[in-house]
């Protein structure tokens, strides 16, 4: 049987090239060490002392979107994404992090809301901010966005916690179905709290008592992806602790969801947290996955029917295997005409800091997505990831498309929206 150790053994890569057929980065630049096959060779050579941790090696490690398409097709059952993560971790262990990463990661660890406020304040300085902000998946992504772009997302004046009560009761007249905890993540907490609200209201309409727990922190994925396993596992521990008393943890952020569901992989089996992480990951659901499982039907809408299409976030489709649920939800909503776009599960091109470090490739991937959206004829492109939302909106502005970007919860919440 293929065990975890074999999955990350680069010697087992036979260089068949299947990964080259699915890699969004290779598809654009055709540079071999930007695709799993080439990276596997480099990682092996560094391990064997044939190549040093030179800058170009690091560039190759960070030229990966971590979308995990290669994991899905590898016939040898390797996980090139895990190999890449391991190699990034090794670089950080040996060479340390950048000063900015240190400040921001530590800041988030100790006082996340202050970091958010700082980012928000900085965003008010003319010239430093753009309307709607730049693509961003996490507060932690700031570490690469600040030097790369010097443009910051707009902080909402009232974070989610100030907008909703700690517990939102099930809507009147619906059958009560129990209690769930919502994990809003940095984005819905500080930058897009209206989506956080839509998620909570939708769950309440589905009959759930929705708790916004205290003591949550960043999901840690940005740090984990950067290779800072120390910080990411610390964040994971805190979140597991804060959510210990809930049976269901729901997130409307595909990225956070992929992290929470993967927490058990962030601890070694010897770690005392491992067992708890395994149990924790089992109780995490994506928003659409959860609603479909509990037979949610959205209320009918009185407004004009709207044609929508769905963009699959890599973190939902490939990391969590959730594909049908958002489509089922959308198709079930009266007043929504669902159309499938071509290559709906193609990457949006963001990949967190990737979009800054590899701007041209990232925007070329984005352009392909824009073409699909345009051809679908949809009035709105719906998705489940704040990072994707930002980057789709960025592409739509760049291409001047008459298309709106929205989170799926806006449609499940229905008409009674108070803005």
């Amino acid at each position: 049987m293929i065990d975890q150790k074999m999955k990350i053994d680069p010697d087992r890569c036979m260089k068949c090239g299947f990964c080259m057929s699915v890699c969004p980065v290779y598809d654009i630049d055709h540079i071999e060490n930007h695709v799993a096959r080439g990276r596997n060779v480099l990682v092996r050579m560094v391990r064997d002392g044939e190549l040093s941790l030179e800058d170009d090696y690091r560039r190759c490690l960070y030229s990966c979107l971590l979308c995990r398409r290669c994991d899905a097709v590898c016939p040898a059952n390797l996980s090139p994404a895990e190999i890449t993560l391991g190699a990034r971790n090794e670089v950080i262990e040996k060479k340390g992090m950048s000063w900015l990463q240190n400040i921001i990661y530590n800041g988030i660890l100790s006082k996340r809301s202050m970091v958010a406020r700082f980012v928000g304040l900085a965003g008010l300085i003319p010239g430093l901010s753009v309307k709607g902000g730049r693509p961003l998946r996490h507060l932690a992504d700031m570490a690469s966005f600040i030097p790369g772009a010097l443009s910051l997302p707009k902080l909402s004046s009232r974070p989610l916690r100030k907008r909703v009560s700690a517990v939102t009761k099930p809507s009147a007249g619906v059958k009560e179905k129990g209690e769930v905890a919502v994990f809003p993540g940095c984005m819905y907490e500080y930058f897009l709290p209206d989506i956080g609200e839509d998620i909570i209201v939708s769950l309440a309409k589905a009959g759930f008592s929705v708790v916004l727990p205290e003591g949550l922190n960043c999901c840690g994925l940005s740090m984990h992806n950067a290779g800072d396993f120390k910080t990411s596992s610390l964040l994971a521990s805190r979140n597991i602790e804060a959510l210990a008393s809930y049976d269901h943890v729901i997130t409307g952020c595909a990225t956070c969801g992929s992290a929470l569901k993967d927490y058990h992989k962030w601890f070694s089996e010897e770690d005392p947290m491992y067992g708890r992480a395994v149990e924790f990951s089992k109780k995490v659901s994506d928003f659409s996955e959860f609603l479909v499982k509990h037979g949610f039907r959205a209320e009918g809408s009185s407004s004009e029917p709207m044609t929508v299409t769905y963009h699959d976030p890599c973190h939902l489709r490939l990391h969590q295997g959730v594909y049908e649920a958002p489509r089922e939800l959308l198709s079930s909503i009266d007043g929504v005409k669902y159309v499938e776009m071509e290559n709906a599960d193609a990457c949006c091109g963001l990949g967190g800091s990737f979009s800054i470090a590899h701007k041209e490739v990232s925007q070329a991937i984005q352009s392909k997505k824009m073409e699909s959206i345009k051809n679908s004829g949809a009035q709105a492109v719906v998705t489940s990831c704040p990072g994707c939302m930002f980057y789709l909106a960025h592409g739509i502005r760049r291409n001047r498309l008459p298309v709106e970007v929205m989170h799926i919860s806006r449609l499940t919440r229905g008409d009674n929206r108070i803005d």
Partner: protein
Amino acid sequence: MAITKEVISQLHKILGDKSVLVSKADLTAFSYDATSNWQGMPEIVLFPTDISQISRILALADRNGVPVTARGAGTNLSGGSIPVFGGIVLCTARMNRIIEIDAANFTATVEAGVVLNDFNRELAKQNLFFPPDPQSFLAATIGGCVAENSGGPYGLKYGVFKHYLLGMKAVLASGEIISLGGKTIKNVTGYDLPLLICGSEGTLAVVTQATLKLLPMPEARQTVLAVFNDIITANAAVSRILSKGIRPAKTELIDNWIIRRIEESAPLGLPVEAEAILLFELDGATETVRMETEKVVQMCYDAGAADVRQARDKKEADNFWTARRMGFSAIYGNAPTAMAEDVTVPMDKLPELMERVKRIGEKNDIMIVTMGHAGDGNLHPCILTDKKNPEHYARAQKTAQEIFDAALELNGVISGEHGIGLEKKKYLKKAMSPEAIELLKKIKTVFDPNGILNPGKIWE
């Protein structure tokens, strides 16, 4: 000869900085192909985007005696795209436009970097079909396939790349651009130069564009999987089917070891006890396919099959074929070094070859895993070894040598579809007469007098 700074700076001028790679981490990524035991570092990697750039690069390289190894996706299995003498790797992957699909004339003209699978996806939209199917088709480029004269499971019924090559654009070592052939099925105008370049492994010219013959998409396809308790019976079934005038589009054989590995890594519900599985695809008009399927099923049972299944739907058929494609990967994933051979014998000699391969493995105490294209006599005995273990590796090489000898004795060839490259060049002398090899060398000199194109390949 090492490439000079002056040449490097001129290459930058021809291409611009974004199409030139020189760092060690970058060069390393173009130092291998899909074989497991060859590596050679280039000194510079270039990504031309049009033919005039290639012309200027080659002229410059030729004047300065710099080796040039053309490369597509580097998924070849012969060592053929490895720059053993350093110099330039000329990667055509960014030249990936489909220039024309001419449905009326059943031809298409494509740039060298078009990926075979992408090409077929585009063709499918117009109900067209391009059969040659090396099992690396997900990533392999048309340019590479032309240079290697690639083929795959469809070989038996539909032939290989050379059977579809009508014309090409290529650049000679001197930098001269040549247009060869045309768009017609029939063309006897002088020597058939496109066919000479096809399969020349990048040693005669750099192919930049190919005009290919297309077929209409078959109306129906049916996959049949037959399970046998021994390999010899499986082969008997194939002979029986072929002798009755049925030409399955594909007739593939996988052995027990591979069946088990596939079931371990990605279970497809294959019977793990079976000694061998034959996988057929029948295609053509719906009614014909239905009738032929019935006959194939019956003839497999008549030959002694333990179980025969028809794929219920496209999804199940895809699963079966994925299993076949994963075969090689399963092998590589389970041994430090795998030597994937591709000896080919006349169809009726296949059972004897397999018998001999088995004995050779046992005699040398070397694990040999077998899969192949049962219908066309092309066998892939894969020798599992570890090149870091000199004693074992030496035995493995001896095993390969004996397999080649066996194939040649049975009137076969040492390579059916992978090519000679580096992997088999020391066996060429056994497979070709000295006069014939001399002729190869003379042809090479006419095309490439200074020997800059992919040096070190095919012959010693």
